[in-house]
């Protein structure tokens, strides 16, 4: 039998004996069997030691659980600042962080619409769709609206996107912060400053920050 197998068998026998000893008392048969196991154990030991260790572990578990319950039952008040931080955090990661309907945003959107349409013009060829979608390579459609750029691609849990804008020569013009939802809120005025031959790269990173793929315009 392999050493792993022996260890497993040892643990199984010990577990059964512990159950009998701790639940039913240290009867002579259990003591004898436990003695045999302990004798075979490379560390040696005795019945009392084994029982004491088990009870010590159980005591440690109970203490740990008690401390946890006490901490969880402690002060109930949540600092409003922390409450806002948590709400914002979850909203950003579940794609519910964008707010619409604000009068200010609506007015801003209307004001930006005309200029933004001009900015989109270079990407619209004869075969381009009439709607506001801009295709940035295979597999992802990017919508451009007054609130910024948005695309239909869910990040991995904890993952994020980074969008890099480059000019025709490949020079970086702009780089988004970490975007935990598929949207880059960006003023139309800022985008209007980019040249017509600007290209986009969307880096897709997983929850560990590892780069999964990069989607590019062509």
């Amino acid at each position, binding site marked *: 039998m392999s050493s792993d197998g022996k260890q497993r068998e040892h*643990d*199984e026998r*010990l*577990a*059964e004996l*512990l*159950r009998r000893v*701790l639940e039913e008392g240290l009867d002579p048969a259990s003591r004898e069997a436990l003695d045999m196991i302990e004798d075979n154990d490379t*560390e040696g*030991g005795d019945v009392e*030691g*084994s029982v*004491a*260790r*088990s*009870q*010590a*572990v*159980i*005591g*440690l*578990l*109970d*203490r*740990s*659980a008690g*401390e*946890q319950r006490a*901490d*969880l039952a*402690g*002060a*109930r*008040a*949540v*600092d409003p600042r*922390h*409450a806002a*931080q*948590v*709400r914002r*955090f*979850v*909203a950003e*990661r*579940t*794609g*519910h962080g964008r707010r619409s309907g604000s009068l200010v945003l609506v007015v801003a959107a209307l004001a930006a619409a005309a200029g933004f349409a001009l900015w989109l013009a270079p990407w619209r060829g004869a075969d381009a769709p009439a709607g506001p979608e801009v295709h940035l390579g295979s597999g992802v459609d990017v919508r451009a609206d007054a609130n910024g750029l948005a695309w239909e691609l*869910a990040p991995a*849990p*904890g993952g994020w996107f980074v969008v890099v804008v480059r000019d025709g020569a490949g020079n970086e013009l702009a780089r988004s912060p970490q975007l935990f939802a598929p949207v880059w809120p960006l003023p139309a005025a800022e985008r209007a400053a980019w040249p017509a031959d600007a290209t986009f790269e969307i880096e897709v990173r997983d*929850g*560990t920050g590892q780069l999964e793929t990069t989607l590019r315009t062509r």
Partner: protein
Amino acid sequence: VDVAPGARTRADVHAEASAPGEGVDPQDLARDARLVRDALAGDRAAAERLAERLMCVPRVLGAINARRGGRLSSHDLEDLIGDCLLGIWRKLGSYHGEATLEGWLYRFCFLEFMNKARLLSRRPEVSKPELLQHESPEVAIDRDLEREDLERTLLRLGPPDSDVVRLKHYDELTFEGIGRALGITTKMAKTRYYRGIAWLQRELATQLRERRA
């Protein structure tokens, strides 16, 4: 998160095994698992409820820090809150209702707190001078081993045995309740529990012995 529609989680089994009068209502475990699953799947209402539940994170970290004499400054604690939220979000997909959501969050926060405290102390390990004063490693486990050792060893033990041990101690379920909750016999619940205890005692004793060597 890859959860097939209609897939049964362990907590769904908990829900069917509800037994009044035990430590934690298995229905709560099922609800917690479903809440997390729905929130990660993009359900807005679930996400908002999850945010409410996650508000225990700053509170718990504050309590842990207070219990340990304020080892972290308020600035470090603020950093840790952000780090914990990020780490929790990355791990939430692995939560399957094996404990209450708050209990699961607490353990995550506790281990992250210990990591941060160790990092700030600029020592590779938390100093445990009192640990080295005892001569008998076996009988010293109860006094000396800290919760961190226990939690990390429980993580290494892993399910299903660690689930049984946690449900027994942290959520105060009886063996009968654990058996019903996990869909196993009471005898199997006991076997897994004592097997877990036997494994924990061996591992913790070994750690203590190595630390002294």
